[in-house]
């Protein structure tokens, strides 16, 4: 049982919880590095492995290349190094709400109001499309605010140990 194990004194419980993943450095551009998320060996081990099952649309290599991202280079990383990066634990939920829930809410609200006011399928359809467009504008504004607060930015945590993967199971 883990319950009686004394807590690790080095663990900082006040720090925000992070969802971790492994990426490798593919390019360096001034003070920033380009990272590519690593493909995992098996599906279901981590969130990134979801892309492995989607081989039908382009190759895995293409998809990983499309998912390259840039972060600051705080530890003088060099090309080829593997690093552990993380995003805040609730970042994915906030991002999902911003990208999907906001446009859906405006779409359904405008559709319901049009149906109640006019009772015509064609007008309801047009109102829903307009509501979707409006929702996407709100979504863009919300994403901008998240970005300004740094909620969406991945952070460098440490260099990955040899043989380390994102499969913790």
């Amino acid at each position, binding site marked *: 049982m883990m319950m009686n194990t004394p807590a690790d004194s080095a663990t900082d419980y006040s720090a925000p919880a992070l969802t971790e993943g492994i990426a490798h450095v593919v390019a360096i551009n001034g003070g920033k590095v380009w990272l590519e998320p690593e493909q995992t060996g098996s599906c279901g081990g981590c969130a990134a492995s979801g892309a492995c099952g989607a081989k039908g649309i382009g190759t895995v290599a293409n998809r990983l290349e499309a998912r390259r991202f840039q972060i600051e280079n705080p530890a003088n990383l060099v090309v080829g190094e593997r690093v552990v990066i993380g995003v805040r634990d609730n970042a*994915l*939920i906030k991002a*999902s709400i911003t990208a999907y829930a906001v446009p859906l809410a405006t779409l359904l609200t405008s559709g319901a109001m049009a149906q109640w006011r006019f009772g015509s399928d064609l007008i*309801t359809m047009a109102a829903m499309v307009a509501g979707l467009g409006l929702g996407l504008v709100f979504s863009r504004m919300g994403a901008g605010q998240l970005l300004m607060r740094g909620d969406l930015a991945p952070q460098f945590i440490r260099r990955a140990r040899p043989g380390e993967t994102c499969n913790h199971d």
Partner: protein
Amino acid sequence: MKEYVLLMVSAALVNNVILARFLGLCSFMGVTTRIDTAVGMGMATTFVITVSSMADWAVQSFLLEPYGLGYLRTVTFILVIAAAVQFTEMTVKKVSPPLFEMLGIYLPLITTNCAVLGVALLLVEGRMSFIASTLFAFASSIGYSLVMVMFAGLRERMALADVPRLFAGPPIGFIVASLLALAFMGFSGMSTS
């Protein structure tokens, strides 16, 4: 109003996409190891199911039915779903590239999610109005997301439990899923009177 509420409760709980109709089981087992990934997948699927069902209703009402092309329904709906996923991917990328980096991995999985096609075919079977079909699709996908998040929460707890080695991993997951399905059967006893 009451009929819309009943339609939505029926679609989300009584005839739940995953636990009553057994659709979307691949994502149900594959993306429920963590609650936040389940929420991400659930929301993306909700968006795609709602948008694609609107498009499917229009295609069915203005193209397939008037011209007697019902035999092309499945192929056409698959095309519409793929287009809706592509539209979502492009829109999220345009609206916010950082959001796309975070959520983009879920979108290709939705193209092959049979729950999306299943809901579209159920709409045709139900011969509903536009608003009713959109609400039905939305409620079905809310039911899907609800079950995904519940199951992810259970799996996170199971990861800390002392499961016999023979049952560890997917076997205990299937047992829990079957118990969850039994619990959802209770909703079929609901009465509106």
